[in-house]
Structures are given as C-alpha cells and as structure tokens.
C-alpha cells in the first residue's frame, strides 16, 4: 500500500503504552498494550509499533498523547531555565497569589521551577493602558541573559508586567535575545498567553520554558527513531485541550501537553458516546491513586481555563476540564480516631500496591475489597506481573484495619469499603454535573481506563444515573482518542471593556484576525481536514465581579451588542439560575479557537463480528458478593459477546484489561458499536 491509509494513536501513560491502529481504507483495527519505558519513552513507543505488522512507511499519521511533560513537572525534572522580568517583579513567580497548600496546619513549602537566582530584572515598564512608562533597557537585558547563560540556563522566559496590554517590550526582548541566546528555547509570556493576570501568565510561561528542552529532545529522538524505521508521514501531538498540534508547535509550546493523555481519553469518550446516541455522559477514569471525571453535555466537552499541576504550578491554557478526587484502586481504607471509615487520600499506588499483590503493603485498599468480594478475578490479575492475587492476605488486612474497629467481619467490612468508596466516586460525579448547572440524573457514566467499569454499575444506583456506557476497548481509550482528535489552536486576547462602550466592529475584526492566525497554524499542507471552523468565546461578567463566565458567541454576531448581551445572560442563567438587570456588563477576554476537523471513521468497525450466543460466551463462574449476599455468578468473555446480546445481573464481564460488573437488578446489552450499555431493569 502506498496511499498511507493507516493512522496510529499512541498514548504513553505512566504504566502502559497503548496503541490503536486504524486502516482507513479497509476499516481494519488493532489494539496493542505494552509496558511503558519510563525515562526512555520512545523505546516503549517503538516496541508497541513493532507488535503490529503495519509497515511504518505505509503509515500516514501517528498521533501521540504524552506524559513526558506532565512527569517532568511532577518530578521536577525540567531544564535549567531563566526568567527575565520587569524591574521590581522577579518574585511574582514565587509569591503566587498568596495561597497555601492546605487550609489547616500551616505546613508545606513551595519551590518554584525557576529558583530566585535564575530570575533577573531589567528596567522596563508598561502601564495598564498599554502606554510605555519606562523603555526597555537593552544593555541590561543582554547582561541579564549573559548571567543566566553563565549560570547554566538552557532556556529563557521573558515575562513583563502589563505586557498583555502592549506586547512591544516582550517582542523587542525576543529580538535582542535571539541575537545572543544559543538555542531556540525562548518564551515570551504574551506569545503564549496575552491575558491579564501576571502570576498565571508568568507561571504558564515559566513551566513552558522549563519543559522546552526536555520535550523538544524527546520529540526529536522520537522523530529520528520513527524516520529510521521508515516513517514518512505526519507526527501529531495531543494537547490538553483535546486537539492535536504539529511537532513544531509542541516543541515551542510543550506546556500545552500537560494533560495530553487524559484529554485524549475524554475526546474518545465524547465520540463513542455521540455515535452510540448518548448526548450527556460523565467520563470516569479510575487509576491507582485517583478518580478523574469529566463532563460531556450535549455532546460537547468542557474546557477549563486553567489548572494546577501541583501546588503553585499553575498552567493557564484551555484544557479539557477533568476533576480529580483521591480515590483510586490503591486508595487505603482506614478508620479514623473518631471511628469513621475513610477512603484515601493515602494510596498504596501500583508499588507496593494493594495487599493482594503481596508486595509489602499490609493496609487494605479499594482493590483489596474488590478482590475479597469476588469482583476482581484473583486468578487472572490485570497488569500481568503476578500469577495470582492473595485473597487471604487481603481479607486479613481488611478485618484487622476496618472490620475490627467497626465491629464487622471481613466480608461486611469489604462491602463497607466499597460502599463508602462508591459514595465518594458518586460525590465526584454529582459535583461536576451540579457545578455546571446540570442534573446528574440526565447523564450516563462512561468509564475508561482499567478500573472504572468495576464501579460503573454501582454508580448508576448511587447517583441515579440513567445508565453506564462501557466502550469496547476502555483500556485504550486515550489511544483511540488520538486517532479521532481534531487539530486545534486556542488563542486569547484581553479586552477589558464595558459592553455598552465597546467598539464591537473592532472586536469582530480582532476576532477575525486572530482566527486567521489560528487557521494559518493549522498548516496548509500535509494534514487533510474535512473542515475548518472558528469558535469564539468571550469571558464576561457583571461590572464588579472578578469571576467571568465563558460565553460562546457566533463570529458573525460579534459586531452586535444585543446579541452578545443575550448570549451572556443565557450563559449566566445556566450557571447561576438567574441574571441581573441594570448592571453594566464587562468583557474581559476574547477567545478564538481554530479547529481543523480530521476525518472521522465509523466507530462501527469496533463492533464484534461474532454471532456467539451469550451463554456460549460464559467462560467460568465464581462467587461474587453483592447486596449483602454471595451469588454464583457467570463470568463472560466480554469480547466474545455478539451485538445485541443481553446479560442479566449479577454477572461479570471480563476482558484483558477491564472487568465490568453487572449488579443485581441491572442488565447489560451490547450495542451496535460493541459498547456495553448497563442499566437498571
């Protein structure tokens, strides 16, 4: 084949590297899961590619979700980076917004990614209205850069006060620095984020500079290796906003990959849900230490304006909004001194992991409760490192740490752990929907990753969800999302004006100009799109409020004040129940997203082609505890179930990397796409 019709999605996570192969001409697919190679991520990447017979020369596009940037941030393994600021403001980065890590206890410290001796000040000042108060001192700038180089800086970031109102000095600084800086790792904060709020902008830029050398060298290595294997197509990188970008853009803006992998999973979920006819879903990804949920309402994913990777590590860049609570499979169950059963936040993680793994942890986890209650198959542990799970050890730990303090036997205690864990997961689902003004009863759960499907059935009852939709390959959802994701570039400009006095024609012209820049970034060759769109949002509030709401406005409506006002009031109503009259309205920021729609494929190719009867898909039976008693429960080979199969609970559906529990009083049905739809009878 020479038409390069194969697309490959590759998600490199902390534990596994997942790959999804799609031949667009034949509709043939394949999924591959290999262990990740931490620190040498390209090795696992190439290893995964080799597990499929596709010749790389025949591959048109590889789309990559990466945690290289995330890990470098979390483990503080970025580059030595310098920061140049306006005189008087080098400590903005370290002073944050005067917060603290925990409300109670007054403990905890903060170490900025750029230490104080790597932060230089230069004479320069722009006022809030954009006028130049003090010109940029070029000699001082050169001297500062030289000092940073002498101190070993590999990257440099420029962040000036009020530069959002006038970028002239930052642009000037980039020119001067380009003459003396020995590499390409230069970041001007307003190139990344021309938005008001100096700490958030500086922090985002600092993290970008900190990541540039690390991510660039990783992508270079990867590109070289792929080239050596004959790959001549496009390599694209998934951003935190769920869109993809070129390698060139990713090398310049690595901070946009901070939540790359999880974002791809949500994108895949949205597509799977839409195809299956589910408009409203909440995705749930249960890992070892955390439970991540994201809301998709009316088929649309929701973007958050910023997030903190860790205390004080603020990234302000649109990203798929993912809420996290500290309740994963490895979360430890314990009884506090007041006699109340608690789950987490402490976690046994994957090393040493749950008690049943036999790797040294003796405090019970949520996974241990699932093992003891027969919900997880002790004879076939997921992950493949162990032959068998130690049920007795898990039971003993549960009895000792939870049962005895609460006066319960081991089984009752295990059931209590699950009940309380499910209540916490339910709380997370409830909160993401309620916070955005929705009723959780209008939503279905969509678990992806390994652990979510174990709890999805229970969550239906706990939250009152309509149903749960379990994708055919939940364990490789992020890799699938890579294949599906559109190319996307989000841009922002601060407007900061009163709607009544705003020159809306100028606003519309500005939006078009920014939109054109974004469309240009999509590129004109190489990648094929089925369409190109511009989406416009205004961050708006009533005058006097400091929090804004993101108001979608059609590009054509931007020059019409009344239409903007109506759009704001409609958004405000959704968020807060009602809006106010006779209060001036402020427009803080203009956001324009340029989207290149990549070709979609028919998700029906994922559906099973077998016509196995459900009873023939029963692989074994085991005792499972549910609703206060043990049940002799059939265990189905999930992938063997044909389209249209119906399985009544209690039942267990197993596949390589996921276990789905059909609770009592629930039914599982295989839909046309091979998804399992769980619902109460």
């Amino acid at each position: 084949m020479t038409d390069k019709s194969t697309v490959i999605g590759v998600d490199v996570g902390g534990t596994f590297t997942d790959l999804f192969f799609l031949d667009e001409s034949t509709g043939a697919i394949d999924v591959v899961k290999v262990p990740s190679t931490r620190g040498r991520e390209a090795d696992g990447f190439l290893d995964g590619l080799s597990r499929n017979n596709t010749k790389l020369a025949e591959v048109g596009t590889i789309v990559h979700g990466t945690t290289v940037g995330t890990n470098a941030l979390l483990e503080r393994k970025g580059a030595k980076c310098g920061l140049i600021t306006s005189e008087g403001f080098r400590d903005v980065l370290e002073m944050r917004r005067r917060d603290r890590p925990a409300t109670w206890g007054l403990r905890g410290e903060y170490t900025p990614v750029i230490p104080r001796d790597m932060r230089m000040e230069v004479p320069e000042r722009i006022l809030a209205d954009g006028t130049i108060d003090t010109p940029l001192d070029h000699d001082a700038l050169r001297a500062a850069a030289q000092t940073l180089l002498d101190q070993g800086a590999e990257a440099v970031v420029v962040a000036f006060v009020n530069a959002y109102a006038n970028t002239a000095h930052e642009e000037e600084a980039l020119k001067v620095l380009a003459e003396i800086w020995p590499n390409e790792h230069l970041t001007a904060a307003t190139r990344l984020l021309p938005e008001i709020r100096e700490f958030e902008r500086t922090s985002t830029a600092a993290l970008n500079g900190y990541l540039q050398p690390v991510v660039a060298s990783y992508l270079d290595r990867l590109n070289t290796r792929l080239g050596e294997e004959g790959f001549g197509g496009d390599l694209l990188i998934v951003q935190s906003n769920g869109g993809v970008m070129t390698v060139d853009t990713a090398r310049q803006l690595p901070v946009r990959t901070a939540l790359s992998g999880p974002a791809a999973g949500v994108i895949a979920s949205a597509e799977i849900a839409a195809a299956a006819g589910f408009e409203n879903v909440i995705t749930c990804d249960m890992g070892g230490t955390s439970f991540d949920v994201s809301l998709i309402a009316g088929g649309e994913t929701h973007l958050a304006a910023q997030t903190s990777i860790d205390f004080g590590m603020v990234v302000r860049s649109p990203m798929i909004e993912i809420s996290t609570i500290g309740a994963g499979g490895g979360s430890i169950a314990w009884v506090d001194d007041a006699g109340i059963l608690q789950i987490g936040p402490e976690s046994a993680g994957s090393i040493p992991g749950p008690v049943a793994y036999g790797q040294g942890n003796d405090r019970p986890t949520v996974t241990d409760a699932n093992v003891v209650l027969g919900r997880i198959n002790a004879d076939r542990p997921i992950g493949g490192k162990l032959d068998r799970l130690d049920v007795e050890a898990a039971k003993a730990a549960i009895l000792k740490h939870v049962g005895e303090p609460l006066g319960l036997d081991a089984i009752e205690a295990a059931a209590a752990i699950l009940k309380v864990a499910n209540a916490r997961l339910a709380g997370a689902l409830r909160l993401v929907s309620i916070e955005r003004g929705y009723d959780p009863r209008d939503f279905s759960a969509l678990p992806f990753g390994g652990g979510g499907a174990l709890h999805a059935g229970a969550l239906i009852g706990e939250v009152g969800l309509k149903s749960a939709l379990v994708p055919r390959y939940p364990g490789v959802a992020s890799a699938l999302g890579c294949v599906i994701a559109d190319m996307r570039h989000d841009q922002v400009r601060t407007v900061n004006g009163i709607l009544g006095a705003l020159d809306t024609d100028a606003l519309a012209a500005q939006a078009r100009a920014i939109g054109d820049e974004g469309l240009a970034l999509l590129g004109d060759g190489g990648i094929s799109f089925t369409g190109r769109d511009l989406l416009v949002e205004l961050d708006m509030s009533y005058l006097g409020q400091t929090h804004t709401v993101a108001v979608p406005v059609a590009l054509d409506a931007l020059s019409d004040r009344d239409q903007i006002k109506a759009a704001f009031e409609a958004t405000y109503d959704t968020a807060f129940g009602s809006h106010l009259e006779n209060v001036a309205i402020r427009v803080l920021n203009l956001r324009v997203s340029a989207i290149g729609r990549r070709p979609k494929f028919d998700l029906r190719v994922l559906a099973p082609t077998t016509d196995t009867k459900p009873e023939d898909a029963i692989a074994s039976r085991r005792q499972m505890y549910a609703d206060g008693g043990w049940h002799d429960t059939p265990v189905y080979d999930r992938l063997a179930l044909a389209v249209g199969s119906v399985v009544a609970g209690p039942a267990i559906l197993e596949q390589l990397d996921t276990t789905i529990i059909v609770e009592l009083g629930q039914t599982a049905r295989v839909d046309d796409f091979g998804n399992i739809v769980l619902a109460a009878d």
Partner: protein
Amino acid sequence: MSDMDPITLAVLKGRLEQIADEMDATLFRSAFNPIIAEAHDASHGLYHAETGETLIQGKSGLPIFVGAMAYATKAVIDKAREDGNLSDGDVYIFNDPYDGGTHLSDFKLIRPYFRDGELFCWIASVGHWHDVGGNVPGNYNPVATESFQEGMLIPPVKLYSGGKLNPDIVTILSANSRLPRSVYGDMNGQVNALQLGIRRLDALLDEYSGPTVQQALTTLRDRGAVLMRARIAGLPDGTWSATDYLDNDGITDEQMQITLKVTVKDEELTLDFTGTSAQCMGPLNISRSTAEAACYVALKHVFPDVPANGGVLEPVQIDLPEESLLCAKAPRPVGGYTETILRLIDVVFQCFAQATPEIAPAPAYGTINALSISGHNPGGQRWVMFSFFGGGHGGHSDGDGLNHGNAPISTATIPPLEILESAYPVKFTQWALRPNSGGEGEYRGGLGAIYEIELLADDAQAFLFGERGRTPPPGVNGGGAALRNRFTFPDGQGGWAEPPMTSKMTGLKLTKGQRVRLETPGGGGWGDPGKRAPALTEQDQRLGYVETKDKA
C-alpha cells in the same frame, strides 16, 4: 455514643459536607466583590436547630467563620424566639459583631430549614461585604472609638418573610454603603447559596429520611468530641504560658498584651487568658464569640484532622476575663478584629510549642495589613482600592515556613497587580519577597513581602490597618524572631516616614507620583539556628532569602 451504622455514617458525612461546599462554590462564583470572589472571605454551613452549634461547615470558606457562625446562629435563634413567628422561607440578615462575632463587614444570612413542619436545622451564609458605611472606605478605621464609626450595624431582622423579600431592608442596606451595587450583588449571591442548600437538603432527606440524617449529625458531633479528646490525651499533662503583644489600639500608642496559660489534664484542655489587657478605646477589641472562634482556629491548625463541628470544643474550656480585649462589650469598636485573633493564635502556638515542639508551627506574620487607597475619578465617582497583604509563615518541624502566604484565619488570595492597576490609578513599583524577614532557626520562617505603590492620579488618601510594627513574630523552640512590619511614606523632605502608630494610618494624603511602601513580616523561626543544615544556609545566601543583615 450512638451506634449508627458505620457505613451510612461515612456516606452521609460526605454528602453533608458536599452541600456546604456547593454553597461556598455558588457564592464564590457569583459574588460581586473580590474579597468574597477571590479571597473567599465567606463561609456556609448547617447549624443545630436548638443551640446553633456548628453541625457541618464548608471546607473552602474562611477558617475563622468555622467557630463564629455558631454564635451568629444562636443570636438569630434568640431573636426568632423573641419574635415568635418563625416560618419556612424566612431569611434573617445581620452583622452585629457583639452577638455574632467578627466585624461589621461580615453580613450573615441565616435561614431555618423545616422538614415536615418541624425546624430541622439552620443554614447560614456569611460574606465580607466591600463597604458597609462608617468613616473609612472598606471599613478598616484605625481610629474608631465606637462601632458607630466603623459602619452600619444591623441587628437580626427578616430580609425575607415566608419567602417574600422585604425590599425596605435592601433599600436601607444600599443607602448605607459607598458601593451599593456590590452590596446588592453579594446579598443576592448569598440568598442563592442558601436556596441551593435547601434544595440539596431536601434531596438528601428524601433519600435517607430526616431521623437518619439527624442521627448522623448527632453522631458526627459526638465523634468530633471523641477525636479531640484523643488528640488532647496525646499531649503531656502540664501547664505552659506565653504572652505576645499588640502595638497599640490606634488611639493611644501603648502596647497591649494577650496572655495565655494552657493546661492539659488527661483529656481536658483549658485555655486561660487571664492577664490579657483590658478592652481598649480603639478597634482592636474582639467579642467573646470571636475569641472562642479564634481558639477553635488555632486548635484546628495544631490538630488539622479534627472536624469542623461543635463537638470539638466540648473538652476545651476557654476562660476569658470580662471586659478584656478578648471579651469586649458594645459599643467598643471591633473593626480590627483580625489583628487580635491573629495574636491570640500566635500565643496558642507558642504554648503548644512548649508542650510538644513538633506539634505547632512558629507564629506567622501576624497582621492582615488592610491597606486602602481611595480617591475620586475625574467624573467625581469614588474609587476604593482595598486589599489585604501577605507575609511569611512560621517554620515548623517539617521545614521552612512558606514564603508569602495568607493569614492563618483566611484562605484569601491576593488580587493580581495587573487587575488592580487596570481598575485604579496606581502603579506598583515593587512586588517582591523581603530578604531576611523570616526568623532564623533550624527551620527558618517564611519571607514576608515588599509592596511599593505609586499614585498616578492627582490626589488620593491612604488608610492602613496593620500590626506587628513594634513586636515582630517570635520564634519557638529556640528559633529567632522575624522582621517587624514596616509602612513608610514620603516625609516631604525627600525621605521616608513611618506613621506615629507604626502600622496604622488614616487619611494619609498622597499626590501624583508619591509612593507608599509596605514591608511585611516573615514568620518566626522553629528550633535552634545552630542545627540548621549547612546546605540550607548556603541556599538561603545563594537565593538571597538571607542577605547581609540590614537594620529594619
């Protein structure tokens, strides 16, 4: 202890806390003034139907309200009994600090929650309004001698009767504020938060039944007491005391003191404030309810895992001398309550540090530094830039104190200087860490900050309400003191002057191009500086956290 099914108890605990958290989130997102929206100077919770005791409190609200709101609810309970006409849909509103704690800026909206015709509990919302009248915009009046000079005082009155708004109340409130739009917006936000709480409670009680939820609330309270007793029992028996100081009361430049004797006996704890100065002329007084709330805040910093409910104070006896600084009577001014409760928390830390050094951090920077700059724009409209400023946290047994943190009584963030510069005619000329400001120790105190602000308009006035201008935050367990607070302005002869009361200033006239400079304290040091790891000492020098000593 009631024997409630442990599983339902754990589940209901989470559900109830979520209701309070959602009320917090609703107000933070819809508030009009940055003190609520950005600084989270607000709180929500559920309170006992009969006693007003805290049952459940949101996790993201201002810590000091955790204790104070119980007193506020009790004040409403008393008023409702007196009125004798409490009905579903009533909402009381008030800001009387002598009954409800804290200061006039904090408006409490309190609403009964009925279930099957019976009063089940109270739901309350408190938020710091931007301006409530008085002599000084923003209400930090350093020279107030009566509460009448600090703002309007509203006793508990019905904003809503049976679900119907009383518009006269809104008219009165609006007429008494310099920023009526902000008052209206924040009040609406609080009403919406209460309404949300009612809806969530309805749903929860439908699901679990009133008696079950009531039993859970009682059990959680009792468990709070059990946990606190366990924590007290973990301390050695004994008595420890400490005294710390306030600069002055803003009227007379005389030092005042807070003296505390902590006694631990088995599972009981006594906090005895005998020896504390008498109530003062200026606004540094606090009422009994505020003092008890501050004790709770201090204890929760020492024992972060105790819950936010009334049971926690059961094994704690608090002795407050009548008509002292900590038990003032109306109309003694209380507008500067933050400074006094911060000092109260400092003495609690200093006592616990003697009992068990690992348990308590050294005192933090210890002043809220409420600085406002105010003028009129060319159109004649008033502008008020008002903010609290940060400082260092104390060193602790796990490490150095946090640089530029928020006050122990608050989770407030500071507004971006770009937002301030875009809204007001000022230019910050410095926004920086203050070298040497953390007390030395095995673990150093965190650094305070330097903020220097230049006026761009023709003229304006500055007001400052701060403390620690004379006595810096001390260290504990052998650690050193931090640098003191320092506020300076042009002396008219090319130099800098400090206010006569050091950290309190009212009506300071500024003209275009003039600057004011605020240098805030760091935190106290923890442990013997001689034991500090050489690598940390070297790092302090390299990063400039510690420079060749200057004399501040």
